[in-house]
């Protein structure tokens, strides 16, 4: 399409805004990685952090704590969200209940993490203390489950929605029960989308800080069980900066977090592309 001269300016501005967005991301990532990656080595990842008040040391116990809270949140929110998505898509028509639940997921996703943290503090840390150990990675993970749930629920529902009706009908026509059709045909077809939802939830759980601050306890020791207080990487990054200005540990921790988030972005992007291509090929 030929572009008139006086339209060059607005079109150039639109191009500039796209490039600016990309540029912002690159600047942030490059800055953190350039300063942080040189510090990330095997020792940094596997050594215990130094005692309170001293700089240096590794981040091993914080990686373990991140894995623990993330694992708990996915173990709880994963099955519930996928089950809920299956119900919404396979057992209900477009009706009142479905609208309510979708709306609820949207609201849940919008609640600020510090508010979810306040709730988690009162519910898991105080009220359910005998079962969660009070401030613990278990309390932190259960609180995060409330934030992972809506992300994974929505993405799974979208994925199930794109499964062609013919596949369901074919399976039912061959004599399968509804549940058999779901487990052998519908869910496997939608699996890349469902996995994408879980990975997005995983990313949210890894990156979350405010809710963790109020629930996980923040102890720097290596956890022995889920009932121990722990300090995930995000919280460690905040603590080393504000407590004793250990910028070098902060750079290293931030670089590890960024790499985790980039890996998640690439994997979900690849999965979704493969999935769309596969559906197009049908």
């Amino acid at each position, binding site marked *: 399409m030929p572009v008139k001269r006086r339209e060059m300016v607005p079109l150039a501005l639109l*191009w500039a805004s796209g490039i600016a967005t990309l540029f912002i991301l690159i600047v942030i990532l490059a800055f953190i990685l350039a300063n942080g990656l040189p510090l990330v080595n095997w020792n940094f990842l596997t050594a215990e952090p130094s005692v309170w008040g001293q700089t240096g040391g590794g981040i091993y116990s914080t990686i373990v704590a991140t894995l623990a809270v993330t694992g708990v949140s996915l173990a709880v929110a994963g099955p*519930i969200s996928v089950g809920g998505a299956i119900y919404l898509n396979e057992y209900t028509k477009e009706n009142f209940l479905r609208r309510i*639940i979708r709306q*609820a997921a949207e609201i*849940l996703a919008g609640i600020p993490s*510090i508010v979810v943290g306040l709730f988690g503090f*009162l519910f898991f840390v105080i009220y359910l203390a005998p079962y969660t150990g009070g401030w613990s990675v278990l309390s932190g993970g259960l609180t995060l489950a409330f934030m992972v749930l809506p992300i994974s629920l929505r993405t799974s529902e979208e994925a199930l929605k794109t499964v062609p009706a013919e596949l369901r009908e074919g399976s039912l026509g061959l004599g399968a029960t509804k549940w058999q059709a779901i487990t052998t045909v519908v869910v496997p077809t939608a699996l890349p989308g469902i996995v994408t939802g879980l990975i997005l939830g995983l990313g949210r759980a890894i990156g979350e*800080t405010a809710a963790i601050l109020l629930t996980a306890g923040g102890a720097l020791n290596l956890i022995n069980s889920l009932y121990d207080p722990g300090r995930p990487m995000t919280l460690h990054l905040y603590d080393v*900066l504000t407590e004793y200005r250990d910028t070098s540990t902060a750079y290293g921790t931030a670089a590890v977090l960024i790499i985790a988030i980039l890996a998640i972005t690439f994997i979900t992007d690849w999965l979704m592309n493969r999935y769309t291509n596969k559906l197009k090929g049908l």
Partner: protein
Amino acid sequence: MAVRTLKRSRIKDAKGTTIELILLLCAVSAVAAIFLIIWFIFSEGLPFVLEAGPQFLTSSIWLPTDSFSDGSWGIFPILVGSLIVTFGAIGIGTPLGVACAVFLAEIAPPAVRRVLVPSINALAGVPSVVYGFFGLVVIVPWIRGQFGGFGTSVFASWVILSIMILPTIISISTDSIRAVPREYKEGSLAMGATQWQTIRSVMIPAASSGIIASVILGMGRAIGETMAVLMVAGNAVSIPNSIFAPVSTLTAQIALEMGYAAGAHRQALFAMGMVLFVVIMILTGLANLASRRRVT
């Protein structure tokens, strides 16, 4: 024979019903989660608000103590701080975000799109504490050098928050521009309108409800953001007299004080959480209204 078939199908039916029931419980859990959160936040916050009265929102003196009668409970400067920080971030983030969405939906060649879309997803995935860290080591020293003061300021939080809300604005706006019926665009081009005229007079107006919704949701994201603001805003409980002065927000104040708060003080922080929750509910409602409105 017939009896046996009937029996078997009844057993199958029972199994199917159990599965359906379990799945229903999973689906309803999202609703239950919200009620659980509301119940616990409000049970702690509401009694405090009722005791403190309207002064809680209008008084400017925030001197929390563990006992109600010894403290002074005015969150007005904190509330104003949240609003200043949010509107500034929206002011900066909206033009860039909407322009980027138009670019993505209408102009970007597929190859550029293939790079830009995952980049925006990555921008959304970067943990808020990393944004805060970047702000603390790059933006804050820069402001300190250029404009004086501590650097931790209203302006620093505007810069960081406007970046953080970009993915929300871009992805929802892009979707709504893409959802404009093809015929609108083709009709406009067929009438002899240029690409830019079509974008400006057809595509953006037709997608305006979604664009407005994206900005409102961006506002929700900004007002609810905690860690990044906590790290770059300076957290002074007073109404800032310049954009280079420190400021405090509801979220940052809760995060700062929950570590040692007890008694009435803790209740007051839950009351602030309650205020945040109500604001977010209103914004979500507005965003829904906006996106439901259809252009005729």
